[in-house]
């Protein structure tokens, strides 16, 4: 099977954390960027031609991904391509996925016609076996396969696309709506035939339709023009679509079943190598129930927290329920509870930052508090 991957970097904003980066390059899980999950899912399924569609703020992302070597995508044939607006002579941002796909038509039309396309987003993280999804898509004979997760819809959380499935058949679809619990949420992973997709994109754009979920999937299905197959995903799916969800999901990774599923479920998650030394635990440190990346220097106390690479926790410092990103330093005697420190933050000795479970304090990249 000849498969092409398209990653959307998701330009949604979740506040300070995405001020200067896309959702795709948001650090997650101690040593990853969110896009690592999409890249690893694709590369583990043998996808060797991947396009990354990004509207803006893509510099940190390009820096992270480079030529795709860590994911086995540094290839002469296929490999990795950044599909940025500038490179496509469209300087304005896209209104929807279909519009961005239309701009990336050269990329889509490259290669054999019999290819399948996997479209995948960077804000919903999972360790999914795409080979199985692709096989099920072919078996189903449907135009579109949507990977879905049950138990996410709750009548409160607004979902991009939610589907009601009865006896294996889709009976309803809603877009941008807080669907009730009997609906399954789209994980923003779609499989389609490339030739079919190209045709659909051209027809949609010709009619000024640009929204993938609303116009192509739901609209097409409602008009009886598009057959939709649902792939129910059984593993852990993390919807990081707000700062609160990001914070909650980050800390959920500490739980054994969650981290084993998302990091080891079907395949490893690959990321950029940093060549840090192993983490050093000092004579007086007290680390409990934490996820700790490499290169840290831990001499104080940390509980129920995620510590990224090269984090320093000085003697007497107390860190609880926190997400501390790369290179941040928690000074002597400082106290942090329910805090997200972005990269390279310095917490001065004795400082005290106390957030709440649903409203963590977020300290911006490079700041000193």
């Amino acid at each position, binding site marked *: 099977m000849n498969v092409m991957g398209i990653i959307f970097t998701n330009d949604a904003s979740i506040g300070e954390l995405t001020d200067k980066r896309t959702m795709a390059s948001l650090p997650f*899980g*101690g*040593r990853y960027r969110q896009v690592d999950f999409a890249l690893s899912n694709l590369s583990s399924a043998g996808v060797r031609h991947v396009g990354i569609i990004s509207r803006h703020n893509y510099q940190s992302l390009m820096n992270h991904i480079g030529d795709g*070597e*860590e994911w086995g995508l540094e290839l002469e044939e296929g490999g990795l391509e950044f599909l940025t607006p500038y490179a496509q002579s469209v300087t304005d941002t896209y209104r929807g996925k279909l519009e961005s796909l239309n701009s990336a038509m050269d990329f889509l039309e490259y290669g054999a016609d019999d290819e399948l396309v996997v479209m995948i987003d960077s804000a919903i993280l999972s360790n999914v076996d795409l080979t199985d999804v692709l096989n099920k898509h072919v078996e189903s004979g449907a135009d579109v396969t949507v990977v879905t997760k049950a138990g996410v819809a709750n009548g409160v959380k607004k979902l991009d696309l939610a589907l009601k499935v009865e006896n294996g058949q889709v009976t309803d679809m809603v877009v941008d709506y807080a669907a009730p619990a009997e609906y399954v949420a789209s994980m923003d992973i779609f499989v389609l035939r490339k030739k079919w997709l190209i045709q659909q994109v051209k027809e949609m754009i010709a009619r000024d339709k640009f929204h993938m979920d609303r116009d192509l999937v739901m609209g097409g299905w409602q008009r009886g023009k598009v057959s939709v197959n649902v792939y129910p995903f059984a593993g852990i799916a993390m919807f990081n679509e707000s700062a609160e969800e990001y914070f909650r999901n980050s800390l959920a990774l*500490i739980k*054994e079943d969650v*981290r084993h599923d998302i*990091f*080891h479920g079907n395949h*490893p*998650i*690959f*990321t950029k*190598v940093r*060549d840090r*030394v*192993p*983490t*050093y*635990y*000092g*004579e*007086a*440190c007290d*680390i*409990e*129930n*934490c*996820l*700790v*990346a*490499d290169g840290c*220097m831990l*001499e104080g106390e940390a*509980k129920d927290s*995620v*510590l990224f690479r090269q984090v320093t926790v000085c003697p007497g410092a107390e860190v609880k329920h926190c997400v501390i990103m790369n290179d941040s330093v928690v000074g002597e005697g400082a106290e942090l509870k329910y805090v997200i420190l972005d990269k390279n933050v310095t917490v001065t000795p004795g400082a005290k930052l106390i957030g709440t479970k649903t409203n963590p304090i977020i300290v911006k990249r490079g700041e000193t508090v």
Partner: protein
Amino acid sequence: MYFQKKRVIAMLLAGGQGSRLKVLTEKTAKPAVPFGGKYRIIDFPLSNCVNSGIDTVGILTQYQPLELNEYIGNGQPWNLNKTHSCAQVLPPYERHDKKSGWYKGTANAIYQNIDFVDRFDPDYVVILSGDHIYKMDYAAMVAYHEKHNASCTIAVRNVPLEEASRFGILNTNPDNSIYEFEEKPPVPKSTNASMGIYCFNWKVLREALIADEEDPKSSNDFGKNIIPNLLNAGHKMMAYPFNGYWKDVGTIDSLWEANMELLGKEPVFDLRSDERFKIYARNSAQPSSYIDEKAKIRNAFVAEGSEVYGTVKHSIISVGCTIGEGALVEDSVVMPGVTIEAGAIVRNAILGEDSKICKNAVVGGAFGPDEKKSISVTSKGAVVEANTVLLPGDML
């Protein structure tokens, strides 16, 4: 094919068995032995090369090369896989004139690969070995060699006089030029020990290797033959003093010690110092380590992908290990992929890759009253059964 001319290339002797590491090198070559939680010994000379601007490295392998070859791969972790760089594994091979076969000695290994070196037409060749832990800027040594217009420069370090008879000793004039070389002298005249790191003018070395090969009595060894021969022939040879950390990890005791010297607030060998001089290692794609609420870790390294539920004191826990609840690991080196089950006790030990210490087993213990180190060692994949004991100094 086009080969870019190089000013300097390195040849890394990685074919030795390392028999003094006993069970640890039963199934793997010494340079591939894990070190410091996430490294292998060969990462040190390879990273030194890259950090010194040497981008062409020939790696001579012979003994148990499978794991080592896999590890080196195309040299990607050290950035040696680019258009004008390479990490070329050079195993022994069969040649039409039968002047080939197993590498007979260190000099013969280079002799058999003269063609490889010639392709790059280098001015200088740096000869390295895969059994030392250190950070060294070879470029500074080559500059020193060039400045003194020497044929050969040998890195030396000062060793205590009482230990000097274990080394190759270089007796030097006040300007550091060498007038005599003595291999393991019973009565050493100086304390300048050779570190086994040589810089040669390729033209000189090339001739010396060919002459050495024609001498049937030669043991084809750098220390025993090439160096003394060049000295006798009147070549200018310099000693290059090196004062940084350097450790031969050729024995169980020294391997254990070198690992322990990474620990502490101000370690004897600080891997963190000098961000620009990093040690690179092949990436294991493991997630962050998990430290449980019952875990207790003091003065230790814990590498990625490990899960700690028990107590770890003054130890190195490598990539992908599990330390079970109630288990105790103290003064030990735990190599990658080791599982230590609940209630097991490990003291003064080196646990080989993927070995397993089952429930309530006891490995090692306190050193004897004579302070002689008696380190317990498990080999790759060994299993210490539940409720059994591996005595101090024993190997499995």
